[in-house]
């Protein structure tokens, strides 16, 4: 009987070890950064579906929203939420253009600075030049399927909104497939990209309201 328990314990432990993430070595970090950079310099456009989950600990279910993200080098990004509501936001230079169920505006409630910062992070992660950023304390991890990079904000003002930013990179193509923004309360927003189309032509008009 005891022997049986040992076997079960061993199997469970091995399972846990294989699923665990491990920290990247210094050499691995250098190689990872280089690979992301090579891929991102070749990336001119990205069109991707996404699913967003808003997790609030007191809710029965996460709030699930579907949409599409479009990126055009060097810094045009459009997020379009399609289901269960329609809303789009375009980050264009210093402007944020919003289309809220047909109502168009280029203003938003004060935290637009935060939006800009978040968008900048995403743009940087796509363009691969965020790893030398002094704003964060960065840590690198890997599993069998992906790399996980954690960005801890040093800025105390941002820290009141977001504690940590987590990006997951596909191990095969070095592209971001998941973005997670964790709040100080541990509630989070998770965006999972799917069906990414890279370097398909996207007209500039897409980024107008």
């Amino acid at each position: 009987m005891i022997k049986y328990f040992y076997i079960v314990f061993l199997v469970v432990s091995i399972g846990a070890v294989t699923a665990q993430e491990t920290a990247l070595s210094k050499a691995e970090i250098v190689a990872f950064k280089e690979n992301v950079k090579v891929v991102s310099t070749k990336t001119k456009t990205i069109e991707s579906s996404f699913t967003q989950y808003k997790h609030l600990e007191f809710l029965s279910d996460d709030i699930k929203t579907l949409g599409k993200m479009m990126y055009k080098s060097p810094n045009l990004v459009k997020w379009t939420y399609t289901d269960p509501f329609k809303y789009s936001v375009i980050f264009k230079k210093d402007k944020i253009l919003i289309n809220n169920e047909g109502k168009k505006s280029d203003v938003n409630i004060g935290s637009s600075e935060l939006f800009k910062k978040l968008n900048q992070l995403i743009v940087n992660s796509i363009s691969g030049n965020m790893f030398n950023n002094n704003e964060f304390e960065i840590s690198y991890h890997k599993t069998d399927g992906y790399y996980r990079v954690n960005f801890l904000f040093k800025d105390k003002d941002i820290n009141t909104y977001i504690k940590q930013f987590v990006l997951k990179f596909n191990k095969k193509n070095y592209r971001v497939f998941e973005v997670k923004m964790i709040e100080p309360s541990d509630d989070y927003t998770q965006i999972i990209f799917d069906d990414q189309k890279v370097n398909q032509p996207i007209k500039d008009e897409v980024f107008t309201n």
Partner: protein
Amino acid sequence: MRFLLIKALIIASLTSCTLSTTKHLTAITPDVINYHNGYFSDLEKDYIYKANIEAYGHHFGGLMIIKKIKNNHHRVVFTTEFGSKMLDIELIDHNFKTNFIVDELNKKMILNTLKNDFRLILQEVHNVEKMYKNKNFIVYQSKTDKRYNFFFVNDCSRQLDSIVHASKTKEKVMVSFKNVEGQLAKELSIEHKNIKLTIDLKYVGKADKTLP
């Protein structure tokens, strides 16, 4: 002539002092002690609304998330569409606890206005002081501090149609519930009469398409 003018002024001032809410209503003897607003009373339900707010010519939106935690305890979170939290407050009995608020909203007037609005729609049990009726509605009047709440209940459907929050002489806030399904109001409009603020809430169902 002077007499006529004085008379007109007296009539005008008397009319303006009368609350318009009860103008075309007939007072009846209350037959209940409390009125129960059940729109946010389901403990199992996550009430997620798309919010559109018009404040002094500015338009902004987000998600209004409401959850009944237990009896006399609701939590309200307002986030941007991106998911960034703007406000996180709890209504426990009659008191509010602020868990989080962005600096832009952390102004006494804004916060108090929002708290009063949330109290108006979330508080379930209201003492009935007076009752009225007209052709379509039964109206329950309750008192809160120096203000009054009037609950307009459709006489046929028994559904709460609107709430008027008023002082002795003036209507201050009007809440309309539309597109009601059972105990769920799929659309709400909170319209302020004394300040330029309107909050429209539209119920957000679940995203029904799943990615492959």
